[in-house]
């Protein structure tokens, strides 16, 4: 009798967990389904090729034009600019933490950088808008402070702690025996770093870079506030741009549900989703191979 109750209870818990687990999976797969369901209808009106490579984004004109090339270029311009800042700074900081810092320094700096990574993006956006943009406008004598350059700078500062944390993880996986072997052969610390540690951590560092790009492309509030918002193909780094995320965030409030513009914004979200998903998968594969190489599989 008691045994039956125990078995019943065990099964009850097992099924509760199974049901809860599958409902959360359902929610998560729901995102993909919804994006396709709401994102695909626009392609009945606009050909995929025209949508992706059309040079004009005039969703509210009569007749409207749905070409997202200016938005895609805006996203990539800002992201590449951000990478130029956060890759050297992030990886440099990671190298410092792992190779130069004393134990005491590392115990303070590592958590500090991690805490800084949690600053909300709207705070960065606000800072870019009220401090950085006017400052750069005066300094560089450019017509508009809110432009791709300012957005890149803000986004780059924002992504640096993330890149640093991931790269630092990769560096800390490199076994100490690698370093000792190099020292034993007469190399100094710099030679060991460049010739042994960085190549050994190479794919881990690439993971950090890929995830950094993915984060920069998907970041919304910072670019919405700082990039300037003009949906025209940029000619220089100092032109205002409207990245894909900013277009969604800025325009979704003004569309009526079910209009072409509404579906077009969902299609942009779908493309954004696919881009970041592919980047993340690549990062995952690269880092898995890397762990195998160092014998850390699991």
């Amino acid at each position, binding site marked *: 009798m008691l045994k039956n109750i125990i078995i019943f*209870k*065990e099964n009850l*818990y*097992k099924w*509760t*967990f199974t049901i*809860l*687990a599958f409902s*959360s*999976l359902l929610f*998560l797969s*729901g*995102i993909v389904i*919804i*994006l396709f*369901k*709401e994102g695909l209808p626009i392609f009945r009106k606009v050909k995929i090729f025209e949508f992706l490579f059309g040079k004009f984004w005039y969703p509210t004109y009569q007749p409207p034009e749905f070409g997202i090339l200016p938005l895609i270029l805006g996203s990539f311009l800002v992201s590449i600019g951000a990478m130029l800042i956060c890759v*050297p*700074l*992030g990886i*440099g*900081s990671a*190298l*410092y*933490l792992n*190779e*130069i810092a004393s134990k005491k320094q590392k115990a303070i*700096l590592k*958590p500090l950088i991690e*805490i*800084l990574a*949690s*600053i*909300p*993006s*709207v*705070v960065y956006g*606000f*800072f870019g808008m*009220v401090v950085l943009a006017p400052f750069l406008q005066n300094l560089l004598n450019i017509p508009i402070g809110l432009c791709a350059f300012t957005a890149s700078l803000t986004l780059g*500062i924002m992504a*640096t*702690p993330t890149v*640093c944390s991931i790269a630092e993880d990769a560096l800390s996986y490199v076994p100490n025996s690698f370093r000792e072997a190099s020292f034993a052969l007469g190399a*100094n610390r*710099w030679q060991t770093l460049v010739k042994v540690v960085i190549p050994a951590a190479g794919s881990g560092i690439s993971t950090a870079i890929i995830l950094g790009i993915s984060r920069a492309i*998907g970041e*919304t509030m910072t670019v*919405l*506030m700082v990039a300037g918002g003009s949906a025209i193909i940029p000619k220089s780094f100092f032109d205002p741009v409207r990245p894909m*995320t900013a277009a969604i*965030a800025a325009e*979704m*409030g003004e569309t009526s549900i079910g209009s072409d513009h509404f579906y077009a914004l969902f299609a942009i979200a779908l493309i*954004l*989703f696919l881009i970041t998903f592919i*980047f*993340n*998968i690549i990062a*995952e594969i690269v880092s898995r191979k890397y762990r195998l190489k160092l014998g850390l599989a699991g």
Partner: protein
Amino acid sequence: MKKDFTQKIGFSLISLSILITLLFLFIIIYFIFIRGIKIISLEFLTQSPRNAMTEGGVAPAILGTFYLTLGAIIFALPLGLACAIYINEYSPKSYILNIIRLSINNLAGVPSVVFGLFGLAVFVKYFKFGVSILSGSLTLGILVLPVIISSSQEALLAIPQSLREASLALGATKWQTIKNIVLPYALPGILTGVILSIGRVAGETAPILFTAAAFYIKGYPKSIFSEVMALPYHIYALMTEGTHPYKQKEIAYGCCLILLCLVLLVSTIAIVIRQKQKKQYYG
């Protein structure tokens, strides 16, 4: 000699990069702190906005952020934890499971504005919850669900298999093992993940843009179906809407400082818990 010189230059560059990183971040915090502290007072923290957002406080926005965060965690924690327990303890190990795990990890990297659109399509439009606390909480909950699943899973994975086997060998059932052995040991790890998600949810703006947030509502929200003011959205709205940009900027500084303190406090707590736990394990 030459190789020592190269080392000197190389190490200086590396040191310079971390200095620049920290400098940038301190400048941001410094500006927000110096300008924000001027506006913060008891009134600012406890009153509603007055005079077209130029005076008074931001209490409804603080409260709104609290509601949204609480709602999101209430929704995501049980689901995420159960999912992690199921994957780690109950489900048979298989190839498909690996794919599921990979997808969950990757969903954590999907742009937050995409989650916002999902919330708009499903909760606001399909379930007809409207622009409300409920829609916003659910959207934010789904946003952190992958984060909670993967951090809980990591915590569960870190527990040695021998502990489970010892418990089972003593005659405990699977659930008794999970409840008495696995969860207590995994608790600090799970807690760290949850606290970090709280920080993330509190600061997110894009997912609530079209699912929950309003620039101004009269009084406080009355039910989970009302629109709500929230700190991060309030900062954005103060900078882009309204008619008194100069005065609104000052208030936005104050909001930024509150949000910053909130998020930094929360993530510091999480990191301290983790540090302590590491010490426990590695001596």
